[in-house]
């Protein structure tokens, strides 16, 4: 049934509110890819089985990723009139115990992550209070959402609904204010006015380019021609970044709504969402959401009865990082190989099928409904002078609290890594944080107080990129990290231009030599020269930014490079050719576990005789380290 009047909207909103805040107990399981890969599906099945078996008055449902991925599987219980509670690291057994004891008043505070006494809806500004009669005694010890370090400094705009709503329920999306922005602009604003709002907000592209979104929309609208396209870049290829995946899996309607608003502003009637092939669940959720949106008349012909037509098609990528580049993405949509072209003529003037095309990233689109609802002034108050709003980062690697965090621009790296991330686990020391994916660079400890901001990060040789933030400790070798990125880029290079194709390959060869103990004096200078050429002469931004990880690690960790080259030593103990595994005879208990696990029979020893490793046979696989319960294996 197509929505035509505000009464239609109200009816759906009411349906959604009943689903979101039922007058009973509602249990949600986080079923995004991060949840499922840790066993959320089994938890979900176990819960449903228990509820059916014991005929419990509980409705069990699904939700997206709430960002605290370290704690997955996450289960969320909401009883009408009581605080909503999040439970982490759940197993099928624990989940069953949780619900079966719930009506006896057992809330298991030890398993709880946090509780919500109330929820602020960032789209409408409304406050929903879960509790009416104060907090139940047994829940008092459970910290509140805004008190726990992981969430305390976060401001969720793009991720506002992830982990809160059922992504497959359009009613819930409407209930929290969804599609209200679309209704508003179609009823009350001219396309140019929408563009002005987005311009005034200061929103900059969240995919890595950081180009002012409103300006891009305006250029596209003004370009010559009758046919225009609106495209969503969901080819999130930066390894270590999964922000877009979470939005697509947890709140696909936010992207659809953003795109329809954009299409109206720009004057486009056809849109594409290009999702990478490696995200099957995201594609599925997106397709389901699009179907529902079409049924309700929010996408397609005569949207909301206003006569505005805009249809969306979902295309899957073919497994090529370079297709995240706008011209390559459009080539791929046309059915060609993802080879970029020089951008002397911008895609806003000549893009998909040589028509003006506006391409934005998933996170950029997800911000649009909020900017329209709360206004550009509100948005512009968040962030820094030139980087407005929030940014979602995937905080991963050697950090205690890994997950997705959305923070106002201007927060420092130190706050993200230590306050939100909980610092480095295992008593290790921070070494570097890599931002911006393969196009970015490594930032050392001395720069941790840098505020996160498009321009500040670029100034120090890195970049914001799509938001990947990979923390490294002393056990990571920066030369190995540089080699890793260059290896990735030479693999993903389309191969068209000499600079990138030959340049990244040769940079890889030098780095490989260095990590294998064949480094020579002059290699660092050679890398710097190659880096200059690849950066300055490549045809597209893949090549143009490829040298960044290498050049930034040389800049801040030159001593590590020199140790590899001059002393044939890897200070972090990573590069296989330069390290040795030895067993400390004082710690070895001769239990024999390592000997059993060694795939190359390199360990010898007997009962009560400390074991030794034959260096000739040792392939440095590390199985002995995994096996040893006494930490007797050391790396030198």
């Amino acid at each position, binding site marked *: 049934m197509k929505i035509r009047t505000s009464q239609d909207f109200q009816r759906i909103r009411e349906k959604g509110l009943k689903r979101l805040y039922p007058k009973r107990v509602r249990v949600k399981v986080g079923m995004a890819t991060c949840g499922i890969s840790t066993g959320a599906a089994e938890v979900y099945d176990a819960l449903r089985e228990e509820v059916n078996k014991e005929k419990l008055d509980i409705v069990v449902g699904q939700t997206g990723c709430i960002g605290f991925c370290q704690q997955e599987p996450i289960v969320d219980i909401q009883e009408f009139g009581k605080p909503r509670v999040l439970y982490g690291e759940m197993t099928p057994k624990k989940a069953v115990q949780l619900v079966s004891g719930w009506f006896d008043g057992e809330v298991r505070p030890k398993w709880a992550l946090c509780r919500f006494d109330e929820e602020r809806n960032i789209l409408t500004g409304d406050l929903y209070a879960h509790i009416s009669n104060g907090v139940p005694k047994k829940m008092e010890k459970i910290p509140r959402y805004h008190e726990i370090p992981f969430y305390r400094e976060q401001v969720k705009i793009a991720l506002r609904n992830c982990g809160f709503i059922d992504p497959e329920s359009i009613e819930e999306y409407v209930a929290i204010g969804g599609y209200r922005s679309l209704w508003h602009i179609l009823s009350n604003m001219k396309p140019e006015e929408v563009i002005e709002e987005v311009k005034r907000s200061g929103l900059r592209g969240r995919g890595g380019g950081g180009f002012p979104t409103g300006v891009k929309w305006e250029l596209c609208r003004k370009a010559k021609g009758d046919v225009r396209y609106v495209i969503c870049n969901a080819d999130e290829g930066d*390894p270590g970044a999964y922000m877009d995946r979470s939005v697509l899996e947890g709140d696909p309607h936010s992207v659809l709504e953003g795109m329809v608003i954009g299409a109206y502003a720009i004057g486009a009637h056809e849109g594409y969402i290009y999702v990478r092939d490696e995200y099957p669940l995201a594609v599925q959720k997106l397709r389901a959401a699009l179907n529902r949106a079409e049924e309700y008349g929010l996408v397609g012909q005569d949207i909301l009865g206003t006569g505005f037509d805009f249809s969306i098609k979902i295309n899957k990528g073919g497994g090529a990082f370079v297709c995240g580049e706008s011209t390559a993405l459009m080539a791929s949509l046309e059915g060609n190989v993802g080879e970029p072209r020089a951008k002397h003529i911008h895609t806003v003037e000549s893009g998909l099928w040589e028509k003006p095309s506006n391409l934005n990233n998933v996170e950029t689109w997800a911000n649009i409904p909020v900017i329209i609802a709360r206004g550009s002034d509100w948005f512009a108050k968040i962030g820094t002078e030139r980087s407005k709003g929030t940014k979602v980062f995937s905080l991963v690697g050697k950090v205690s609290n890994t997950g997705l965090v959305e923070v106002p621009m201007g927060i420092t790296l130190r706050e993200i890594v230590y306050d939100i991330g909980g610092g480095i686990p295992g008593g290790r020391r921070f070494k570097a944080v890599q931002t911006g994916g393969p196009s970015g660079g490594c930032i050392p400890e001395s720069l941790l107080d840098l505020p996160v901001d498009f321009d500040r990060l670029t100034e120090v040789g890195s970049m914001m990129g799509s938001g990947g933030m990979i923390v490294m400790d002393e056990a990571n070798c920066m030369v190995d990290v540089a080699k890793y990125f260059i290896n990735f880029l030479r693999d993903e290079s389309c191969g068209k231009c000499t600079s990138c194709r030959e340049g990244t390959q040769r940079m890889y060869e030098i780095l490989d030599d260095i990590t294998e103990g064949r480094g020579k004096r002059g290699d660092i200078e050679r890398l710097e020269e190659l880096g200059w050429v690849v950066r300055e002469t490549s045809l597209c931004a893949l090549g143009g930014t490829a040298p960044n990880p290498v050049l930034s690690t040389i800049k801040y960790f030159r001593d590590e490079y020199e140790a590899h080259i001059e002393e044939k030593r890897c200070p972090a103990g990573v590069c296989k050719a330069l390290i040795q595994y030895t067993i400390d005879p004082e710690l070895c208990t001769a239990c024999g576990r390592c000997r059993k696990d060694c795939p190359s029979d390199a360990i010898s020893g007997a009962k009560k005789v400390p074991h030794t490793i034959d260096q000739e046979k040792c392939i440095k696989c590390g199985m002995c380290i995994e096996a040893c319960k006494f930490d007797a294996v050391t790396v030198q």
Partner: protein
Amino acid sequence: MDFRKVDSIIGQHGNRESEVISILQDIQQEKNYLAKEVLEHVAEKMTIPLARVYRIATFYNVFSLKPRGRHLINVCLGTACHVRGGERILEKLERDLKVVRGETTKNQRFTLETVHCLGCCSLGPVMVVDGKTFGRLNQNTVGKLLRDFD
């Protein structure tokens, strides 16, 4: 060779040249890999030069022109997984399955591939087998996980 399913897939996509990547993806889903005869047939049916179809099939990682095993293993070598030892997991699998990355085991049971980022970075190292994701791997457990796949 029976091309009825292939023709049906081409028809579902309206025989549109711009859809050739999606068409090849659906065909591979159906036929396990893209054989030379299949690509020749697609070229003829869609009146696209074979050279162009071949170019597309060899450009994108998702396509395989060689038969793949019954089960597809994708080990994540994304940055977060690399930093947490993803390479070691891959090497363990290479040893256990006696193949090199990109290859299929002799008994056609497994094809071992790598992927750069599946988007589960908090749970690294990660691998996907037949669409099922396994996180928090270590060298000891990874071999045992494969026992469930015949």
